[in-house]
Structures are given as C-alpha cells and as structure tokens.
C-alpha cells in the first residue's frame, strides 16, 4: 500500500510535465491535495479508527473485526476493565513507564550534551578518535543481553528502576551524542572565546551559555528518545521483569495472552498507552525538524 504513494507521486510529477499548462496551477494543487488527503486517510487514519472504534464495542462485536459503527457503546466499561485488570497492573505500569522515561531522558540529555560538547570541540584530538569510534560502535552493535543481566545482577541493579534507567541511557547515548556533537558544530567558537574572556570556565561556558543554545536539538532528542524509551519492549522484558515492575508495553504483551479473544479490551489498552506520547508530540511537534536540521542531516 505504501507503494501506492510513490506511484501517485510519480504520476503527479508525470502529469505535471505532460499537462504542463493545461490546467491552472492552483487547480492542480487542489487535486494533488485531495489525492494526498484521501491516501493519508486510507493508509493512516483507517487503522487508527479501526483500533479506536473497536475499543468501544463489546466482545462479541469486536470479534467480528470490522469497522462498522458500534451497535452499543461500552467505552467506560472497557476502559475500566483494562485499568483494573490484574490488580490495576496498567496503573502501576503507567507509573513505572513515566518514571523510567523521565529519569532516562533527564540523565541522557545531561550526559550526552556534555559528551557531545567536548567530543566536538576536541575533534581531531588524540583520544577523541577513540571515543568517536566507541560511540559509533554503540550505534551499530546490538547490546549483549544476557551479559548485561549478569552485570546488573552483580551490582544489585537487576530488576530495579535505576538499573533499567542506566541501561536505557547507555543504549541511547550514541544517538544523542552524535546529534549533540553535530549541533555543537553549528555554534561558532567565538562564543566560547568571548565567554572565556569574560572569565567563565569550561563548566560555566557549557552549562550557562552553550547548553541553552542547544535547545532545538534537545527538543528533538526529548521527543525521539522519549518515544523510544516509553515504547521500549525488549529492554524492560529482559532487565525489568516481575509483575510489580511491569511497563506499559509489557502489559500489552500480557493482555495479549489474557484477552485472547477480547479484542475490545486489547484495543482499549493500545489506545490508553498511546496517549502520553501523543501529548508529548503535540507539545514538541514544531521543534522536531529544527533539531534534525543540524543533527542528523549534517552529521
């Protein structure tokens, strides 16, 4: 189905060549917009609608797996059932996931911004090539799961929130550091120099002057990495097991075996756990591209 978009886009370009001056430019824009709207509706909105509308139905109706309007609404009933299932597992999971996300992103932002700053300013230095290589390796090499469990267990951090937080920071550090490094490159060294002349040290230069200037890329990292951490399934599965420790993604996985035929409840869970990131996106939507511009594109 995604192929259709490309076909449509190619057709659009072709048409624009052949029909050239046939219809007015404005009319063509409208036609293209209509096509784009229709396609985006079919490809993106229908799946969302399907999930949401089925989370309102009763079990028998949702078992039909169709998109028809519910014969009777069971919104409160379904959502309450999901929230209270397994001793309010989902509520605990929300608490765990939120805390994990906030802590991980907080630590990640501070340590990677600091690292990105020095790695960029000392690029070409003796050790920086080693550090650069290590960072790049982290971006590519998948983490070794069981040895990580072993390390966590040895330092008594296995199955703890701090343990999983550090793992998340470590695993997302390379991407964040590369973005920061690239963005620091766009900040002229003259800023540093004038700060130093004013008597600031490296610490004040970074925390008081440069870090605020990194705001666009910080926003980008907050959005992208919060999504990754909040939606992470694999790492909590391995490093944060136990029913008290459930994160929202694990509830989904548990509910999948519990509610094998109750699609309505499964879908209600999906809707609920999608809301936090949606809110985050609404707040940071505008800034995502800004941070990317320097980060991923010139990196």
């Amino acid at each position, binding site marked *: 189905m*995604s192929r259709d*978009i*490309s076909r449509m*886009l*190619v057709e659009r*370009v072709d048409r624009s060549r052949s029909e050239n001056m046939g219809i007015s430019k404005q009319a063509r*824009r*409208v036609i*293209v*917009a209509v096509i784009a*709207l229709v396609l*985006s509706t079919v490809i*993106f909105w*229908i*799946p969302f609608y*399907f999930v949401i509308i089925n989370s309102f139905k009763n079990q028998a109706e949702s078992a039909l*797996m169709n998109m028809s309007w519910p014969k009777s609404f069971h919104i409160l009933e379904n959502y309450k059932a999901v929230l209270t299932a397994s001793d309010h597992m989902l509520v605990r999971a929300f608490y765990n996931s939120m805390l994990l996300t906030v802590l991980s992103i907080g*630590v990640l932002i501070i340590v990677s911004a*600091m690292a990105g*700053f*020095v790695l960029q*300013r*000392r690029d070409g230095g003796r050790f920086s090539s080693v*550090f650069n290589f*290590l960072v*790049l390796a982290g*971006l*590519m*090499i998948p*983490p*070794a*799961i*069981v*040895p*990580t469990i*072993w*390390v966590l267990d040895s330092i008594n951090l296995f199955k703890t929130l701090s343990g999983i937080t*550090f793992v998340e920071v470590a695993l997302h*550090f390379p991407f964040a*550091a590369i973005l920061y490094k690239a963005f620091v490159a766009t900040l002229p060294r003259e800023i540093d120099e004038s700060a130093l002349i004013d008597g600031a040290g490296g610490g004040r230069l*970074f925390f008081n002057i440069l870090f605020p200037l990194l705001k666009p890329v910080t926003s980008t990292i907050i959005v*992208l990495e919060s*999504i990754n951490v*909040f939606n992470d*399934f694999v790492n909590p599965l391995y490093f944060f097991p136990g029913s008290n420790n459930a994160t929202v*993604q694990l509830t*989904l996985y548990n509910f*999948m075996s519990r509610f094998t035929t109750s699609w309505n409840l499964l*879908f209600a869970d*999906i809707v609920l*756990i999608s809301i936090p*990131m*949606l809110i985050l*996106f609404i707040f940071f*939507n505008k800034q995502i*591209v800004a941070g990317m*511009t320097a980060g*991923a*594109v010139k*990196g």
Partner: protein
Amino acid sequence: MTKLTIRTYSYLFLVPAFLIYFVFYLLPTALSLFFSMTRWTLTDWDYIGFDNYVTFFSETALSIGFRNTLIYAVVTCGLKVILGLLLGAFLTSTALFKNYLRSVIFFPTLLSTIAVGIAFSIMMHPSSGLINTSLAALGINGPDWLGNTKIALLSVALVDVWKGVGVATVIYIAGISGIPAEYYEALKIDGGSSMNAFRYITVPLSRPAMNSVIILAFIGGLRSFDLIWAMTKGGPGFTTDLIASIIYKQYQAGFYGLATAGNVILFVGVSLLAFPLYKYLTKSEVYL
C-alpha cells in the same frame, strides 16, 4: 592543542557519559565474548570453547535467519529511503495541508511497535481481517498476509515501513529545507521543470539526510526484533525468523551461553555490513 582548550574542554565532561556507557554497554559487550564460550546458568558456568558457535551455526533456522535479516533490512531501508525522499520533497513543496500531512505521517512513530504489530496482525487475518475483507469488497482475493510463507516477511516489512517512514520523512524535510532557495530559482529561470528540480537539486543536495536515513534504517532493520515477535514470532515454522528472534528463542530456552554466542555472531555480522557502509557513505557525501 593549546593549554586553554585542554582546560576548557576537559575530558572530565566525558566521565559521566562514558562511565554509564562503559558499565552498561561496553563491559557487557566485552564480557559476551567470554560468556559465549560457556555453558551458562547465570549463577555458574563451564568453559566449553567454541561449542556454542558450532551449535548455533548448525541451528536449523539459522540460514533462513541470515537471509531473512538481510532481506528485511534491505527492503525496509530501501522503502524508507525512497518513500521518505518523495514524501519529504512533497511536504517541502507548496502542497496544501502539508503540516497536517506531516503530522499524520509522523503519528505512527509515536505508537509502540507491539501495539502496531498486534493491530496489524488482526487486520491481516486471511478471511475476516479488515484488509482482506476490504479487498474482497473490491473483488480482489487478498493473500494470507502472515500465513503465506512467501510473503509473510514482506508483510511485516511493510508494517515496519508504515511505522517508520515518518522519521525518515522528517530527516529529509530537515535536509531539503536546508537547500538554499536560490538554487531552485536559478533552475526555474533556466526553464527547468519541477521534475528537473527534484532530480538535479533535491536528490543530490539531500544526500547527507539520505545517508542518515540509510544508516539508521539499515542498522535498525538488521537488529529488528519487536515487530516480528509481535506479529509472527518467527513463524509459520521458521519462515520469518530473524537473527534476533533466533537469539531470543535460545534465551527463552535458558541457553544463555548459546544466546550470547548468537549475540556475538549478530554483532560481528552487523559490524561487517554497517561500518563499511558508513565509511562509504560519509566519504561520498556532498556538502553545500
């Protein structure tokens, strides 16, 4: 390097990051080389040399896994690179509703992979799923998306693209909006069409963005696990197993040493593919 920079840009800034990075990533990765040569129960281990590697390489599904992982990475990466470029170009043009469209395309990125996997596997049910009932209404006999061994892997890859094309698009948008408007104006004055603009300005000058997309999508594809696990668990049989899902199955069976050996094989494989690709791409990059 002057004394001033050494003081100002102290390596101490790296300490917190690399401390965490070392303990929770580099150390386990290094340890995996040792543990992959043990029979390991987490509490104690016997050294057994390369036996785990021998066992892992004789794994029934391994050759399928290698092939599938490559196909999956190439297909998802390729589609994200191409569709992302087209969508990025479209959404930086004068198109109407582009802000709305950009949000809609980005939206799946916000969802969890597991949620997307569950929803799509329900929609892909061969006879009562939404996709095939819709196709049937149009008179088309839809395939068994996840049951047909020939297309199951591609079905999952398509869902991956559906979910991931938003990030690729945003990276392209960032890249394309950085191209100076004068270039396009100059081309317009020379009488070039919008197709020419796309071909001779947008594509070459968004190379840095494209490289980022290629690297991120390709590595992501090679390491992919969540989606395939949520949708097929490597089945039917072993037809959609990826290296990562084979490793997970060993872990599930409690074969920790063996799972770790698989991990080492995956990381060697990814490194062999990704580092040269990265070097090649960064070398041939076109800067403005």
